């Protein structure tokens, strides 16, 4: 296809600002999908994505659009993940585009995530078309939002398209804006092949399928290609595009977006951001911006039933086929037995993996408190990277601890400022910027430890702002911090799975909260159970669970033995779902208590 008639674009939007509805409308109007097919299409995508209203995997859909100028255009819509954990993936998707629709809710306005992704798009020199959506809502204030886009982002929003995706208003105008305002792709048709991988997944029949954007040259069936980062050579077995059904082609040429499969065995071979080139006639330089994705958040995953350890390993391996961003290695906990230490891009990523393991593989899991990776300089001069609290060296051997620091952007309404500033303060944040951005909204820039985000920050932020705060962050470096290891002892036995790394100054308070919470969560046992929080050998907090007094069926049932048995069985089943540590049965929820330990209200 003549590049003049190709437009590659993505949609930037905050959760619930209507990205999916707009995308569905674009598909419908261009005839890519009938209404009935749209339902089917929606049903095909991941359950989790629909439930959470987020995009986890990228998609690329080709729309054929006959514009008002009478010409046919090929519009490639690249749908990107919309969450802070997946910034790298977003940036690769944006790199595959020349333009983006910035969708802003006409009543909610610009959010932190929108802002972050817009900056990312500007960084990649994308032309941005502001789209003000949901203008049908009674609370819609398109003029104020237009102003806000101009002040906060610095974009000219005078030509912003006014849309109600729900009612189908402004869809034609949006398509015309894409044709007229997004530049056609550049690139060298005759140069050696360079194509950007912006997503990949595993298909049991085809092996790895990658989504790609051809930047220079052409990619053909049967061509021998090379992946830049690992020098592996594969033969192209299929290329094509999604409309949204897969449509095979013989080649994808310069500027086009589509899919490819080449008998690649694992997604970690087809890394997002990597460059595909011709094996025989390689390009001189790879495309810019490739990075190996590094996990930032770590947690132990354990099966509730220890015999399911093998199942869990198989499930993790299967998930990893489709998600090269997380890694895992075997880990052993005194309390929980055999499990896996897993690294994730962030908390949402952790939750997604956890939920998929439970739903798709039916494994009951215990997840230990998420941790970050500390850099520890020992007195012997070694530098250790530790992401597992139980592996923290003895304090006498530690010279210095560096903890990862992030720059966090929070956008909220003025009325919630009080609670949010207090929260940021409590989480050891340092204010770097405080800016009124119009329409009663404030943008905060804070430097804070990543460690404080991974426990309960999202939930706290949500409740402090009744959901009207958005957060974006990126790693900005490391900072020397006096961190200590907080151990929990149940009936005198240390429970390694409850160990936390905390800042020295909050250790007492956190320890106290943690043991209080555990006292409520651990059921009474047949003996008194002390629960202690300790730093080294020093106990800093203690609670006691008194012994259970009675558990008895003191009633006569006219010879009904089965009823007794049922009750005993039920009780026994309940205990099976707990983890026995020493002599104490600890329920699953207790291990999650550490997650909530920063929450002030204690419930």
């Amino acid at each position, binding site marked *: 296809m003549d590049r003049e008639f190709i437009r590659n674009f993505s949609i930037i939007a905050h959760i619930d600002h209507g990205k999916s509805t707009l995308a569905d409308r674009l598909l419908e109007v261009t005839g890519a999908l009938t209404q009935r097919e749209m339902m089917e299409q929606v049903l095909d995508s991941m359950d989790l994505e629909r439930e959470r209203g987020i995009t986890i995997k990228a998609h690329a859909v080709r729309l054929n659009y006959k514009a008002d100028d009478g010409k046919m255009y090929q519009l490639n819509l690249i749908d990107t993940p919309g969450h802070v954990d997946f910034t790298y993936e977003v940036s690769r998707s944006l790199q595959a585009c020349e333009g983006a629709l910035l969708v802003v809710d006409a009543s909610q306005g610009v959010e932190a995530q929108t802002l972050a992704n817009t900056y990312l798009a500007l960084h990649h020199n994308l032309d941005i078309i502001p789209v003000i959506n949901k203008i049908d809502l009674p609370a819609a204030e398109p003029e104020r939002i237009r102003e806000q886009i101009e002040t906060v982002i610095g974009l000219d929003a005078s030509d912003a398209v006014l849309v109600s995706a729900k009612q189908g208003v402004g869809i034609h105008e949006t398509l015309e804006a894409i044709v007229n305002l997004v530049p056609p792709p550049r690139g060298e048709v005759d140069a050696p092949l360079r194509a950007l991988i912006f997503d990949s997944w595993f298909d049991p029949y085809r092996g790895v399928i990658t989504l790609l954007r051809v930047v220079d040259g052409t990619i053909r069936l049967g061509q021998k290609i090379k992946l830049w980062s690992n020098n592996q050579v594969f033969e192209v077995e299929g290329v094509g595009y999604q409309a949204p059904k897969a449509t095979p082609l013989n080649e994808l040429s310069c500027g086009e977006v589509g899919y490819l499969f080449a008998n690649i065995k694992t997604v970690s071979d087809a890394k997002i951001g990597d460059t595909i080139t011709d094996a025989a006639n390689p390009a001189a330089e790879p495309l810019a911006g490739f990075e190996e994705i590094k996990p930032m958040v770590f947690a132990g995953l354990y099966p509730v039933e220890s015999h399911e350890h093998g199942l869990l390993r198989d499930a993790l391996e299967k998930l990893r086929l489709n998600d090269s961003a997380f890694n895992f290695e075997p880990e052993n906990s005194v309390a929980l037995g055999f499990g896996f230490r897993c690294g994730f891009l962030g908390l949402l990523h952790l939750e997604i993996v956890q939920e998929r393991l439970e739903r798709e593989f039916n494994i009951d899991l215990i997840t230990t408190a998420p941790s970050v990776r500390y850099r520890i300089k020992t007195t012997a001069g070694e530098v250790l990277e530790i992401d597992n609290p139980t592996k923290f060296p003895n304090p006498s051997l530690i010279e210095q601890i560096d903890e990862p620091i992030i720059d966090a952007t929070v956008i909220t309404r003025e009325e919630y400022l009080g609670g949010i500033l207090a929260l940021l303060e409590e989480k050891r944040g340092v204010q770097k910027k405080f800016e009124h951005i119009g329409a009663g909204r404030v943008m905060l820039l804070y430097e804070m430890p990543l460690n404080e985000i991974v426990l309960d920050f999202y939930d706290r932020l949500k409740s402090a702002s009744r959901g009207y705060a958005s957060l974006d962050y990126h790693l900005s470096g490391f900072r020397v911090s006096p961190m200590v290891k907080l151990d929990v002892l149940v009936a005198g036995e240390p429970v390694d799975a409850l160990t936390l790394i905390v800042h020295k100054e909050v250790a007492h308070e956190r320890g106290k909260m943690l043991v209080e919470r555990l006292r409520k969560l651990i059921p009474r046992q*047949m*003996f008194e159970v002390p629960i202690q929080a300790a730093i080294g050998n020093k106990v800093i907090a203690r609670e006691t669970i008194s012994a*259970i*007094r*009675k*558990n*008895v*069926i*003191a*009633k*006569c*049932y*006219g*010879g*009904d*033995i*089965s009823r*007794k*048995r049922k*009750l*005993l*069985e039920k*009780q*026994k089943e309940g*205990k099976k779902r707990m983890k026995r540590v020493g002599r104490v049965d600890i329920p699953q929820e207790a291990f999650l208590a550490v997650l909530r330990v920063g929450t002030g209200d204690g419930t």
Partner: protein
Amino acid sequence: MPGVYISFPFCSQKCTYCNFASGVFPAELEARYLRALRAEIADHAWQWAPETLYIGGGTPSNLDPSVLASLPALIPNGPWAEATLEAAPGSIALEKANAWRESGINRVSLGVQSFIEREIRGTGRKHTAQTVAEDVATLRGAGIGSINIDLIAGLAGQTEASWRESLDWIERLAPEHVSVYILEVDENSRLGNEILLGGKRYGASSAPSGDMTADLYEFAVERLAGLGVERYEISNFARPGFESSHNLKYWRFASYVGFGADAHSFDGVMRWQNPESVEQYLRSPRESGTPVNAAEEKFYVGLRLSEGVDLRDGDWAKFEAPIRRFTEEGLLELDGAKLRLTARGVLLSNEVFQEFLL
């Protein structure tokens, strides 16, 4: 020697603590039920001669004495060594008691639950301590030689003082047998459900805590022992020689046959259960049986008795680990080959029994 149980699940009111299928049903249903019950008994092929009879409920004492008498009349081998009738206090006239006695009844179990008026009203019952005293006198006058009184620990409004008062009444009336039940807090009774929900109906918010109820139970054990009424099963207490020989059959694995809704039977090999609800029972009286698991029942049923179980009979080797653990923890004690619950073990018996399930 085997026993016979007859179930009559009809009551004039549903008590707040009751988690049985008993209740208030239309009068028309009662007549149909009695017909079905008589038919079930008449159809039974007796392979042995019953030694004990137990007519339970519900409230069988509400039946017209002549109708009631028609039930034992169908059972062979009368008069029986022990024939118990469950009765609600406050409804026992001398003629009625005489008629019971004539039909073979020689033991009456009174569903008193409490002697404290406030507590009794809370359950939905209408009697007073005084009516119970009169009933006991009437029964004695009719020649009923063995009387049981039921008490419940854990009722709404109960305190240590009120519990002591109920036990004072036991001393005064001197029944041969006392049952002390601990209120079962579950969603199947109105009171239990309300306690679980943290509500206030049926006085739920004034119900003693679980720990306090345990104290009340232990207090009763001690007080009754002082009166010569000894615990012989977790919730059953008697003067020596007045233990319920019918109920002992349940715990000693003797055979029994049950007639009526929710009645249970055991023939030494199989257990049967009739449908729980009256309606289902009327449709088809008997459900299929399941074979007994003697090895595990020996413990979770047999250990309820104060005499304990004899480890010499049966296969106990597979339970060696829990036996050792609980004797070490002081919940079980071994006396030669006899294994029994300790005083503490009684209150935690479910914890012990669970480990004897296979």
